[in-house]
């Protein structure tokens, strides 16, 4: 695939209009906002740099890389099963599965190589509560679209970070311009993280956002599922 073509497919998949279902989740941000722990652009930038980006680099990234190199649906299912075992934050795990399965459905519909085969394999395995995790599907799709591993990783991290800033806008904690400033400011940290060596084993320590994702304010209506 030419550089321009792979870049265009990457941009398509990373676009906020791509129907991944990620807009339904704030990954703990809504709780942190309601608790007054995230109030504006500075808090948001700190949260991304100290929690969200490290968690993706340490937990999701190794699964994405394994899936990118996996040969066939059975190997992908093994990776998915391990991801399930290690996803010990229930709401983040549920969000990851819902997004992953949405991605898989859309990519199967648009004919991304490998997507339909893996979707059928998951249907046959009949483990909807335990498979279809986002980084596994992202890795498989990246390989199917013949993106480079670096492109697949950058696209996946970008999706997470822009999803969080978008949630912050909808929660009224960032204006649209503030969100773009946060994204511009955090890009160097994202690039630095991506340039670093990926951990051999997945595993992250981001307790603040992981705990927040599990909390619900009593009597408060939530905008997001997490």
């Amino acid at each position: 695939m030419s550089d321009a073509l792979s870049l265009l497919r990457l941009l398509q998949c990373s676009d906020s209009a791509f129907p991944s279902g990620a807009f339904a989740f704030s990954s703990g941000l809504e709780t942190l906002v309601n608790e007054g722990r995230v109030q504006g652009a500075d808090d948001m930038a700190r949260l991304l740099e100290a929690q969200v980006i490290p968690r993706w680099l340490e937990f999701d990234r190794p699964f994405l890389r394994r899936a990118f190199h996996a040969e066939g649906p059975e190997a992908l299912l093994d990776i998915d099963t391990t991801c399930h075992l290690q996803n010990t934050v229930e709401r983040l795990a549920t969000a990851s599965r819902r997004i992953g399965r949405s991605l898989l459905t859309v990519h199967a519909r648009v004919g991304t190589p490998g997507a339909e085969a893996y979707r059928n394999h998951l249907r046959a395995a009949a483990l909807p509560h335990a498979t279809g995790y986002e980084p596994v599907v992202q890795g498989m799709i990246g390989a199917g679209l013949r993106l480079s591993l670096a492109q697949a990783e950058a696209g996946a991290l970008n999706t997470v970070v822009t999803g969080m800033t978008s949630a912050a806008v909808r929660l009224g904690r960032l204006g649209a311009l503030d969100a773009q400033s946060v994204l511009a400011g955090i890009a160097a940290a994202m690039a630095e993280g991506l340039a670093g060596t990926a951990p051999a084993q997945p595993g992250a320590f981001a307790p603040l956002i992981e705990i927040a994702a599990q909390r619900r304010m009593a009597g408060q209506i939530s905008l997001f599922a997490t």
Partner: protein
Amino acid sequence: MNSSAFISLTRPVRARLSFRDVVGRTHLMEQLTPHPFHITRPFRHPADPEGMATLYLQSSSGGLYGDDDLGLKVQVGAGAAVHLTTQASSVVHDARGRPGSVQEVTLDVGEGALLEYLPDPAILMSGAQLDNRVSARLGQGARLLMADAQLIHDPDGDGRPFGHLANSVALAGPEGPLILERFELQGGDWLARTGGARCAGMIIAANLPGSAPALAEAVEATGAYAGLSEFGDRGVSVLRFLAEDGVQLSRALSAAWRAHRIQTTGAEPHPRRK
């Protein structure tokens, strides 16, 4: 100095405890506790689950040093009931350029047995390096309440963090693996990841249906910041929490244990003095 320049003179130390149910009472049937492991005599309390034995683990060395390599294997036989705790926190001292300490605990909980494994938190001093691994294998119908917590301490107040922490907790049931919780962290990242809290931990309940929400409520009432994940398909709950200091952390652990006991036995447990 490069830690790889050191040749470790430390020999691995392996301890073993084996409990068994004998006509409704749990006994410590086998013990191997080489230095620095030390244990108290097991005792019982009327408010405890039937036949339960309580045992305190102690250290005769004052903590974990340099490249200590300590292993503890605990076997709880079918139908036995054990409360296993520590006399105090484990201090993980400055590794002073050595590779760091390894602490590996293996829990084997037999069919229908109950294990409360509630050690005090590890205190990570400036420069400490720790590889902490806990694995539990549960037989059919086995129940487990366990804690795994750390707090950071900078005795000189100069802001020097601990060095490195590798932490893993793995649970397996009769059908295979249930959960694997693992992470690695440089000490300098601790406060950013916890939002400024000096203590972090988790409590895992396996095959203790209905007790987890009460645990979460009790921990929250101590002022700790807590979030509960329940995995009904595997019968496992994971309660993560952050605490401001060691006092709040101890209260949180104690509150969780009391809530679990009230849920499972209907009675407030007798406090374990430390």
